[in-house]
């Protein structure tokens, strides 16, 4: 038996030698760190791509009237911007964090199913290649909004719809496989002694998120399939003339779509809950309540989908049910915000860039949460529905929420990933430029929406002109600020002050027990957890 173990260990060492050089390393890799890196770079490239589309949108909206693009192309821009940011930037970025950090945090040698892990990643560039290629097709890209409501996406859709459907199918396959891998890794690969309630909260949030993905991505696959058969094979799922209902589309889509928005925010909670204790130099306040709050948010997310559909003429009972369930979500979310603030209370705080982004997250995400609470109220939603107020709401939770947490996490773990400290002053420039510009970009949208400016429209009434000008200026500034991040990351990879194994004195977790940069293989024998 003992010799067996020695043999196996020497085998583990042995396969370091197999690490290929050049492009093959990245194409064939089964290493969770390589795959995490691939996910993160892919997400950043997609962020810049989706951001470029947003720049054109904001340029068109800089002043009233049609200046730069045709209305149809404007619709293509908003559609693909949304799809890329949701499926191409935020979700892959979080999967990148999951890949890099979960095995190190739970003391596992790698993800549970390493080859499948590679497959999950490499589907994505192809899926988004197809999606972006539709811009060069005769009919143009999808133009029905990222929510692709029927009948816009069926009866009135353009010639690229089939490509959109199959691109969504394969990115769904990628997400489901990625999620199964995360679930199995966490259930099966924890170091001996690491019980569920000893897992870092980061791991918990990704665990719950992965369950949400496995539950709802297949529903998305189902709904795009119905859309495909309605458009090309004459079925009547979303066609009242055949006994179906366009509103059925919205029910199915949002049954996927609402858990989806938590898929994009729960991991952010995990990242922020890791960073705030590190820089407040206190343990996370209320760990178990954080776990239960995350689980309750996930469960409730299946009971709130129709709050996106208050104006579709649902029965009154439905409107009330979904309104109250939605308001209920504010309770566990409130628990979380309270716990973050309580963690900082009387902490010995310092304000490095990860902490700055995390504090900004807590404040700005809460603003997005409050506007969400306003939208949850059925009667007033009739005024807000499909206005810029909604655009402001979800950009506060997705940009200053999810994206800020991704930046916070990236700065926090860059020393572990690269072995170098990033340039703190350049990073602070990134933070302050982003913070100011993002609020200039999204805060006035609340007022535009309340005053009645509709979303997804390339032109607008004159009274909205001043605010839109400032919003566009904020947009361009925010877009440019992200190039600072690119500069910080490249500088950090190429060199800089050597990072210690644990560069943040308040940080906790197994990932800080290994060297920086983390060795190619960590924990081929699991560490001991007390």
């Amino acid at each position: 038996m003992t010799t067996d173990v020695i043999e196996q260990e020497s085998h583990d060492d042995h396969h370091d030698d197999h690490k290929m050089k050049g492009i093959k390393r990245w194409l064939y890799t089964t290493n969770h760190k390589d795959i995490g890196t691939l996910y993160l770079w892919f997400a950043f490239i997609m962020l810049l791509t989706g951001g470029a589309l947003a720049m054109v949108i904001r340029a068109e909206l800089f002043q009233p009237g049609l200046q730069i693009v045709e209305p149809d192309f404007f619709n293509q821009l908003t559609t693909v911007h949304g799809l890329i940011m949701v499926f191409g930037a935020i979700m892959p970025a979080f999967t990148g964090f999951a890949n890099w950090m979960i095995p190190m945090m739970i003391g596992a040698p790698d993800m549970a199913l390493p080859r499948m892990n590679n497959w999950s990643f490499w589907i994505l560039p192809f899926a988004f290649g197809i999606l972006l290629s539709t811009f060069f097709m005769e009919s143009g890209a999808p133009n029905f909004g990222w929510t692709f409501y029927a009948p816009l996406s069926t009866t009135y859709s353009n010639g690229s719809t089939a490509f959109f459907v199959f691109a969504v199918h394969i990115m769904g396959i990628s997400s489901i496989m990625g999620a199964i891998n995360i679930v199995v890794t966490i259930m099966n690969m924890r170091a001996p002694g690491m019980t569920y309630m000893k897992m870092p909260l980061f791991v918990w949030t990704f665990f719950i998120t992965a369950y949400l993905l496995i539950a709802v991505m297949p529903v998305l696959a189902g709904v795009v399939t119905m859309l495909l058969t309605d458009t090309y094979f004459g079925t009547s799922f979303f066609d009242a003339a055949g006994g179906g209902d366009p509103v059925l589309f919205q029910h199915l889509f949002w049954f996927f779509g609402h858990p989806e928005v938590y898929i994009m925010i729960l991991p952010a909670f995990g990242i922020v809950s890791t960073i705030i204790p590190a820089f407040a130099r206190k343990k996370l306040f209320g760990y178990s309540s954080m776990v239960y709050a995350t689980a309750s948010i996930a469960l409730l997310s299946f009971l709130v989908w129709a709050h996106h559909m208050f104006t579709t003429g649902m029965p009154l009972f439905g409107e009330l049910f979904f309104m109250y369930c939605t308001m209920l979500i504010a309770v566990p979310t409130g628990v979380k915000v309270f716990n973050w603030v309580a963690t900082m209370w009387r902490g010995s705080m310092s304000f490095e860039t990860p902490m700055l982004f995390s504090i900004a997250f807590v404040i700005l995400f809460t603003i997005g949460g409050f506007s969400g609470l306003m939208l949850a109220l059925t009667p007033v939603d009739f005024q807000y529905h499909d206005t810029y107020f909604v655009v402001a709401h979800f950009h506060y939770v997705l940009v200053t929420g999810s994206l800020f947490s991704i930046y916070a996490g990236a700065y926090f773990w860059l020393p572990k990933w690269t072995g170098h400290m990033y340039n703190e002053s350049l990073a602070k420039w990134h933070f302050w430029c982003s913070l100011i510009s993002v609020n200039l970009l999204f805060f006035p949208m609340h007022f535009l929406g309340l005053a009645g400016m509709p979303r997804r429209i390339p032109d607008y009434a004159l009274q909205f002109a001043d605010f839109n000008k400032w919003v566009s200026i904020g947009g361009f500034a925010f877009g440019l600020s992200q190039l600072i991040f690119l500069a910080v990351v490249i500088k950090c990879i190429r060199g800089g002050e050597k990072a210690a194994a644990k560069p943040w004195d308040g940080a906790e977790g197994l990932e800080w027990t290994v060297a920086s940069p983390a060795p190619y293989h960590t924990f081929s024998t699991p560490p001991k957890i007390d």
Partner: protein
Amino acid sequence: MTTKEYESYYVPSQSHWPIVGAVALFLIAIGAGNYVSTLKSGEGGIGGYILLAGVCLVIYMLYGWFSNVINESMAGKYSHQMDNSFRQGMSWFIFSEVMFFAAFFGALFYARTLSVPWLGGADNNAMTGAVLWPEFVASWPLLVTPDGTETTQMGWYGLPLINTILLLTSSITAHLAHSALEKDNRKMLKIWLGFTILLGVVFLFLQVVEYMHGYSEEMKLYLTSGIYGSTFYLLTGFHGMHVTLGTIMLIVVFLRVLKGHFTPTNAFAFEATSWYWHFVDVVWVILFVFVYIV
């Protein structure tokens, strides 16, 4: 031994199969996208060939990938923990399949209990019926759609009932095969597994006969026959595709049994296939009740 010995978790070295799989899915997606688009526009295209190439590449990838995994398993590289990873992975994959079917059942229930009655003026929708389609009478199955397309109902007795019996029997034979494997009775294992495959193939054959019947001039039950035809063909069609996949999995397992693979304690692929088969069976029972009978 006083302490539990740590078993090393096998982390495979580089593999080219995932990227082959990604290229295959890419070919399938653009091939299918192109093919489906030309259906509508009527122009010929090469989409069908790209799709076919993608499917062939997927089969090649699965063959190569699974060969690797089987060889590693036979070489004794897998620990008990690895086996657990496979089991949990398969369970959650089946759960995702459940949710896929849930979407289509959701559409069925929505149409039956909400959208069709509403079109007929139920609840506060009196004006919908009166203004849009005054002639329309709500019923399920919806044999005359609001725009006047007519069709007939597929009865539950006859082929569907026979198919139900076939599939339920096949679940039992699959279980008997599993018991035989646990007792290491290779002969009975082969017999029961063979029966299971046969029942699956007959089921698929009868399903094709039923579709041909549905598409006949006599029944006029088409995909285009309104929400009844849509839900009928999509639900039974996706179920049929899953039975096809399950049958292929059973055949692969059967060939492996002939080669002498699987032992009572090491038979993950066999068990996963049998779980999948039971899952397909359960979906059929629900489908039989809500699509055919009720």
